[in-house]
């Protein structure tokens, strides 16, 4: 009897939980993805198949990796305006050196990650605005990519292509991979002991430093992670396209920022959500397909991404305002 009473009471508490601002805020990314997916299924029932989903979400994985990279930088209150160009450079290295002389390719990629860590150190030590530094780096990355691969071409290593085109049972590879990435990063940043320090360095750097942690180390770690996930983004991208182009991923800079924000991350204060970021990346990828199913001209694809971003942020503003009033 008492169990029943408890169950009843908790059921009665459910609506208030669901309507609580905190729950709404964290559910918003998943909600937007679901609504979008349902709308697509409704408009084009044939997408509700293995191949349909594969087609829809084909490019989601590289975008998800880039979004995770961006999220790492945003965690420590910075912004990376060079991630798109960097992904292009990785793609270029991947389709040339990594294929022809793997050792050189691996060394170059590790070098890129080291440069990222050094950027974090430079930004922290000289107290520089990350926007300008990473904007400058976007020129550098693009230039290096053009040096490595002056004209579009090259060939992605077979093993990468094999991974990306791997036929998984039930659902396409992209979905498994995205879920896997979201979970791994979630454990690393949200559940691990040092992850708490990394996020704390974005939330209240002074108190983290006061407790004896090195802010230089946290910043370098997060930038190195950004370099690492940016690398995965570039490699997974050429796995799909099979060849590379220095300009292949310039859009990713803006997409990755939008993805983080769509996923419930905030610009400052270390409030991030790896799972949300992956969802945000998928939402942006789907938005394009959604419009084509609506028979809207492809011209409106980017616009729709902007529109979705604004609508989600408007919802969030309303939720926050409701919360402030309570």
């Amino acid at each position, binding site marked *: 009897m008492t169990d029943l009473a408890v169950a009843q009471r908790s059921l009665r508490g459910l609506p208030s939980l669901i309507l609580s601002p905190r729950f709404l805020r964290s559910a918003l990314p998943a909600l937007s993805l679901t609504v979008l997916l349902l709308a697509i299924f409704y408009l084009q029932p044939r997408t509700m198949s293995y191949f349909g989903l594969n087609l829809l979400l084909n490019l989601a994985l590289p975008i998800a990796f880039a979004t995770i990279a961006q999220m790492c930088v945003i965690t420590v209150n910075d912004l990376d305006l060079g991630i798109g160009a960097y992904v292009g450079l990785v793609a270029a290295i991947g389709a040339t050196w990594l294929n022809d002389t793997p050792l050189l390719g691996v060394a170059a990629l590790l070098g890129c990650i080291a440069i990222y860590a050094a950027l974090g150190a430079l930004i922290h030590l000289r107290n520089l605005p990350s926007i300008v530094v990473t904007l400058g780096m976007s020129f550098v990355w693009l230039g290096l990519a053009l040096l490595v691969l002056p004209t579009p071409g090259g060939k992605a290593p077979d093993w990468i292509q094999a991974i990306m085109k791997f036929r998984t049972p039930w659902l396409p590879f992209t979905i498994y991979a995205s879920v896997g990435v979201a979970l791994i990063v979630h454990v690393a940043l949200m559940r691990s*002991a040092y992850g*708490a320090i990394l*996020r*704390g360095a974005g*939330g*209240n750097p002074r*108190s983290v430093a*006061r*407790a*004896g942690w090195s802010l230089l180390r946290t910043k370098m770690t997060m930038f190195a992670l950004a370099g690492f996930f940016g690398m995965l983004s570039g490699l997974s991208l050429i796995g799909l396209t099979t060849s590379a182009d220095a300009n292949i991923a310039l859009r990713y800079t803006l997409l990755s920022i939008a993805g983080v924000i769509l996923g419930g991350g905030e610009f400052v204060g270390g409030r991030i959500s790896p799972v949300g970021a992956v969802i945000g990346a998928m939402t942006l990828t789907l938005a394009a397909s959604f419009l084509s199913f609506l028979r809207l001209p492809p011209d409106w694809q980017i616009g729709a991404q902007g529109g979705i971003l604004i609508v989600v942020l408007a919802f969030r503003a309303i939720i926050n305002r409701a919360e402030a009033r309570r």
Partner: protein
Amino acid sequence: MPEILVRLDGVEKRFGAVQALLDVELTFSRGECLGLVGHNGAGKSTLMNVLAGTVSPDNGRINIGADDLTRGYDVTVAHRRGIRCVFQELSLCPNLTVAENARVLHPALKGFGWRRRAGELIIGKLDEVFPGHGVRAGDVVGDLSIARRQMVEIARAFSVTDVAADLVILDEPTSSLDSVVAAQLLAFVRRYVGSGGSCVLISHLLGEILSTADRIAVMVDGKVVDVRAATDHSRDSLVATMGSVAKDERQANGAATESKRVDNALKVRARPAGQTLGPELLVHRGEIVGLAGLAGHGQTEMLGHIYANRGRAPAGMQIDGPVTLVAGDRQTDGIFPLWSIARNITVCSMREMLRYLLVQSQSEKTMAEDWRQRIGIRTPDMNNNILSLSGGNQQKALFARALGAEADIVLMDDPMRGVDVGTKQEVYAIIREEAARGRCFIWYTTEMDELFHCDHVYVFRNREIVADLARHEMTEEKVLHSSFEAAA
């Protein structure tokens, strides 16, 4: 004789013109709660920052146990020696959960299952200190109420992993707690002390100090003037000790001030936001009105409230005439750090210097030179950067900015913080002169002496006006009494 845990010897600290600590000698013993009281700026917080390792003293020695740790003493050393501090500004990470915040303070919480251990540690301590607290280990700190955040912060300071918490400093720990929870905390402090811990308690509620502390140290002007067993004190004797340096030539002519109220027009009528009953703030033409009370009890908000509603006062409020403000926190609210002294002074008066839509540099120069002479800003060139001035002269520039603007109502947000005595006297004279010309001043000050320049004083406590004292009835004791506790 209890075991002495920490001994401070001849500790001195100076911030610019202000001697924050002067030859402080104080011991902290095991099994004892030390109460620390004093009016604003007496040096309590600075002393505690020295103890916690966040401020390094200019002179003096810090001994912990038998070791002299003065050289290289910092937060890490303090933490390793078991000294914890609950600062007035919250030092939790708002984006992390309660358990994760415990982890930030305790590097030992790592490896598999750390979340569970951190959660048990902090919730266990919360249960011990604040039974029925209603905080869960997984709650994000930013979503908690201020009171619960304060509770987490306190529990975190008392929590122990590989390093003991021997001496815990509580700086106004009850300011955001309700009376039930505050009583829980004080009862816990007694238990903690009873089990051999040591505690420093700073509070504006003298009742708390008298009931909880074993010994009470009173600070006045950066010095510890009195250390006695709490049983030797009463509320009145504490207030008297805090005001022991009171001067007496302040009982000025009250009749003249009263006549100002009768003859002159009412310029400002306002209440703190949220207060509906009790005294109203009234300011008449030519009047200097003081806002008193302990720092952070709603005076600055009152000034902000008046400033924000200038020109369009809502019902129940009256603001008659243009308003200007002299900032007290120069770096945050006052200075434009990249500009010259002249431009910092003229920024409020740009509109009066226009000709063909352009600000005339000649008028700027004239105004700047004018005020340099009137208020005595010591600089070879008014075109030098504002930061080339000393703190006192920067403050003079801010006064010049406000007084140079065409405003009859001047708000002052504790502007004399960290200003030397000579400058203060010069500025007081200018304020009196301007008031005689018909301007009115609303002056929040944390310095008791300055209240005696005012025609009328309103004392704030917990964001409300609790006392309204005319010049002839104002004494230091009355202000202290009203600031520290309601007349019981």
